[in-house]
């Protein structure tokens, strides 16, 4: 099939996913599609610093910070979730500043390692600071349905909310990539020294990219918390769920591109849930083994992800289209 046919197929698939809950009346499908949208948003947000070659595995930290901020404000202080959204973003931006200022100077793998440590530390703090977070017991969002409380009886409102959220994040990601910031991130990922010699303040570029990423991730975290009602440290700061998963989605879909995260999330989210339910019940942990193998195979054979496979079908004209994979090959 020619590249255009693949693109068409992709769009049809995407439309099918989006329309599914409308066409089929099933709570399961509604929940699944909503989850897919959440992950599209999360993966796209994670992907922003990847334009510059920085692959953080600490995003669970921002997710958790955002989510807990919204939850604590609502449950303990009766603050409206809508204000909680703003507060959540502010707190996760702060988290972003704390994480990146000292760590940005680290190259590739050390940065990733340090980012994991950051998320782990926050998880421990969430468990220990019982007076604030209720520790391992966690917080429960009381069920008082209504738009003011961002709580609903039916799954439909969150379907729409998550769809809009996903579209918004993908849009922001697109605009950033095609802005001066995007150029500078890509230049830095390609050759940081040369970029600096041309006058680009690469540290600042990465910093801003990470701030966007952390703020958006925190925002998603707040919404998520009102979607699942239960807030506890090992879930909200879960590295496999909110650090590894978006990264996995991004790598499989195609890191550093716009559609890569979308494709990755759309494919991997249902697959992940399927693996978790079927393999996970046969044998706990089997699904993660499969994840691991998929990841190793992808890294070895298709580091550019699905998008790069599709790009190979296009005659090499050199135009960038929705974005050519950056960060897969040139980052060292």
């Amino acid at each position: 099939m020619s590249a255009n046919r693949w693109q068409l197929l992709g769009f049809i698939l995407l439309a099918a996913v989006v329309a599914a809950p409308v066409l089929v009346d099933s709570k399961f499908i509604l929940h699944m599609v909503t989850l897919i949208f959440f992950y599209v948003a999360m993966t796209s947000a994670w992907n922003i610093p990847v334009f510059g070659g920085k692959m953080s595995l600490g995003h669970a930290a921002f997710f958790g910070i955002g989510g807990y901020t919204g939850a604590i404000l609502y449950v303990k202080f009766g603050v409206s979730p809508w204000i909680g959204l703003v507060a959540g973003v502010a707190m996760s931006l702060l988290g972003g500043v704390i994480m990146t200022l000292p760590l940005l100077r680290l190259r590739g793998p050390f940065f990733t390692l340090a980012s994991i440590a950051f998320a782990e530390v926050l998880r421990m703090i969430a468990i220990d600071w019982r007076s604030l977070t209720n520790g391992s017991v966690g917080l429960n969002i009381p069920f008082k349905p209504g738009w003011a409380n961002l709580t609903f009886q039916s799954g439909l409102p969150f379907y729409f909310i998550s769809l809009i959220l996903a579209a918004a994040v993908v849009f922001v990601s697109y605009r950033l990539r095609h802005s001066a910031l995007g150029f500078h991130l890509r230049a830095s990922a390609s050759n940081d020294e040369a970029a600096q010699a041309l006058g680009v303040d690469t540290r600042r570029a990465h910093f801003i990219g990470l701030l966007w990423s952390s703020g958006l991730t925190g925002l998603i975290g707040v919404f998520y918390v009102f979607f699942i009602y239960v807030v506890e440290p090992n879930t909200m700061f879960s590295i496999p769920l909110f650090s590894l998963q978006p990264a996995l989605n991004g790598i499989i879909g195609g890191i550093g591109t716009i559609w890569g995260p979308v494709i990755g999330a759309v494919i991997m989210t249902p697959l992940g849930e399927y693996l978790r339910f079927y393999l996970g019940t046969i044998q706990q942990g089997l699904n993660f083994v499969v994840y691991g193998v998929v990841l190793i195979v992808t890294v070895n054979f298709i580091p550019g992800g699905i998008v790069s496979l599709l790009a190979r079908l296009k005659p090499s004209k050199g135009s960038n289209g929705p974005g050519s994979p950056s960060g897969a090959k040139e980052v060292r």
Partner: protein
Amino acid sequence: MALLQVKNLTKRFGGLTAVKQVSFDIQPGEIVGLIGPNGAGKTTLFNLISGILNPEDGEIILDGRPIKQLSPARRSLAGLGRTFQIVRPFTMTVLENVMVPLLARDPHMGKAREEGMQVLTLLRLDHLADAQPDSLTLAYRKRIEVARALATRPKLLMLDEVLAGLNPTEISENLPIIRQVHERGVTIFIIEHLMDALMAVSQRVLVMDQGVLIANGSPQEVTSNECVIKAYLGEETPTC
């Protein structure tokens, strides 16, 4: 006032002194060449001036402003441009490569695109605007390197071996570009191994050997300088 003043610049790597008390001036509007045998410290000197390395001693003054404490990016913004010996264009189209430094000075995309095309046209690269650099020949990639540096609107442009690795035809195509850039008012400081090319284009030549500046004069003066000849022949130059 000199555009670039370098005073007693010294760089040590452990026990090795790569650049030793080097001092010279470059006046606005000059084309100055830098030659010397391998290992003389030429690229190290460039790295010191552009900010990739920090000197142990000495001063660097650009257009009256001391730049020793500035980061490489800041020095670029202050008007210092440089190309690298091993060209590595960014993984993006030729036009986008040139837009990177433009966007660092003015984030407007449309303007950057326009100005980028102007630079490409000047260097006769406009027909390759949408090409990917790694599909192009070395000669073109070297030109892209110059285009990129030019887009920084430098007062002083340092060219590090822009002609290395090119065949004679390519050299005869790229060499006039250096003159063209110069004619637009850019002061040029150029390292080049190819003697003929360098002598043909430079007004003044600096010669380094083992970290020391051993000659500073016109191409004729320098080529007949005994010390220079000895250096290239590999002899010790204790009296120079």
